[in-house]
């Protein structure tokens, strides 16, 4: 059965390229949201197998969105991977402390993004 992944990112181009990658390369089902608030609603509705979450977004940023996902029993156990263009060692420690499963770095290679996600989540 195909994995179901929710992509939450305010940038249209990144969202579309990532969605195309996961659908075309891996054959996964992809849902998208263009803000943290929309992502919370869609995560609760669709209950994806994993969430790819942008860190820097206007309004509700990635860490805040993640904390809200954890507060809702419906979405609390969904694995979340951060996607960010800027990550330093201190950020990685901070994200790990939050409970993030993995941090993926932009830019990403559309051909290998599904493999990065699979490896991070132990999907075969």
């Amino acid at each position, binding site marked *: 059965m195909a994995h179901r992944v929710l992509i939450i990112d305010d940038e249209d181009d990144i969202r579309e390229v990532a969605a195309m990658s996961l659908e075309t390369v891996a054959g996964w089902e992809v849902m998208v949201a263009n803000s943290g608030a929309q992502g919370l609603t869609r995560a609760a509705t669709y209950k994806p197998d994993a969430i790819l979450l942008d860190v820097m977004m206007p309004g509700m940023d990635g860490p805040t969105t993640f904390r809200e996902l954890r507060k809702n029993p419906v979405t609390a156990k969904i694995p979340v991977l951060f996607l960010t*263009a800027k990550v330093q060692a201190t950020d990685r420690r901070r994200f790990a402390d939050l409970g993030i499963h993995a941090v993926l770095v932009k*830019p990403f290679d559309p051909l290998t993004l599904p493999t990065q996600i699979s490896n991070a989540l132990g999907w075969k």
Partner: protein
Amino acid sequence: MGDPTTIAEALNQMWVKFLPDIEQRVAVLEFAATAISEGALTAELREEAVAAAHKLAGTLGTFGLDEGTALARDAESLYSRDNLSGPRLDERATALAAQLRAVLARRT
């Protein structure tokens, strides 16, 4: 596994679709560089420049433009500095924006 040629074609179509947005981000950096040279960079424009550079850094490499990502990261670092009054900073900011514009032209 998707065919790499199909992926490349899809990426090319998305590049065309999103090029106006990408060019707009470079335009923000060009405007900010001009503002530095004129001593007129506002806090708001500086924030816009940081955001534009950050987005370019994340996007350009995804379209195969690793050089663009490196330049955008330099620009993000420049506009994130505490002090923007260093020597030849305006020249550096202008050069980065021009180099980014050239990278886009080569992909286009």
